[in-house]
């Protein structure tokens, strides 16, 4: 019973940890640059989950003030994560533009092939 309670209390955190290390693994282990960027965005979104989870109050509602409600979830993580999402898409877009240019210069988006061609050149 205690173990079940622990699972309910920390399920969000554990899934966020899983998403985070999955993103980390993709970034480190895969040589394909588009795949690396997908891994990077997995990593970023897991952080959103970690931030938003403690802001929730059970029985609370979204932080839009109204006479009908008294308990609101914490608005501050929402503000932080709104900023994080927008900055995240900026970095992803920049990374993808770099990938397009690298593909033009080397004819490949695989890390190993690019290193080989770089040594030749």
């Amino acid at each position, binding site marked *: 019973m205690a173990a079940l309670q622990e699972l309910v*209390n*920390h*399920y*969000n*955190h*554990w*899934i966020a*940890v899983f*998403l*985070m*290390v*999955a993103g*980390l*693994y*993709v970034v*480190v282990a*895969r*040589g*394909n640059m*588009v*795949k690396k960027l*997908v*891994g990077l*965005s997995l990593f970023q*979104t897991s952080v*959103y*989950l970690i931030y*938003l989870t*403690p*802001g*929730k*109050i*059970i*029985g*609370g*509602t979204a*932080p839009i*003030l*109204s006479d009908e409600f008294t308990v*609101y*979830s914490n*608005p501050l*993580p*929402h*503000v932080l994560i*709104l*900023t994080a999402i*927008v900055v995240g*898409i*900026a970095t*992803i*877009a*920049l990374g*993808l*533009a770099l*990938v*397009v240019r690298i*593909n033009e210069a080397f004819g490949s*988006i695989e890390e190993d*092939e690019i290193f080989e061609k770089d040594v030749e050149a």
Partner: protein
Amino acid sequence: MVLLTLMAIVTIGVVRLRNLFAVVILGGIYSFLMASVMIMLDAVDVAMTEASVGAGISTVLMLGTLYLTKMEETRPAHTPLLPLFVAVVTAGGLIYGTIDLPPFGDAAGIIHQHVAPHYLQNSIVETSVPNVVTSVLASYRGFDTLGETVVIFTAGIAVLLLLKGRRPASEPDSNAAKARSRRRRPKA
């Protein structure tokens, strides 16, 4: 909980698949699931942003890049043992850290004791905006949001500069790239 489990399954798909098109589409599905989880966590503004930016724009940008590059990923030359080891050790450390975190949905958590009640109580009086997320983002922390827009603007300029110097040999491609850059500008 069901949504979170689905997200974990989609993530396994993203890690295992080699067809990049499928990976990008799964990324879109993942973002929609994330947006649904955010609604469950009462973060409605964030959910809307995630659905439009995460599932919409980033999927479009990724597909545009795939169009300009390649669809298939080659088999990795190295064994994935070392990264796997790093990932597992990191996961172990992080899960050890989560044990001390306050339980989910607890109104007595530290996060709810500090400045958050001030914003919730005084938002109407000080800014007359009922949506507290909006009032913090645009009024209390307006300068930070301005700084954020500068970041987006800089990234937009950098993307334009990178894609502008492309060779004219692939004319339709560079048109597509320009269209992509133009589309992401108004997001700032």
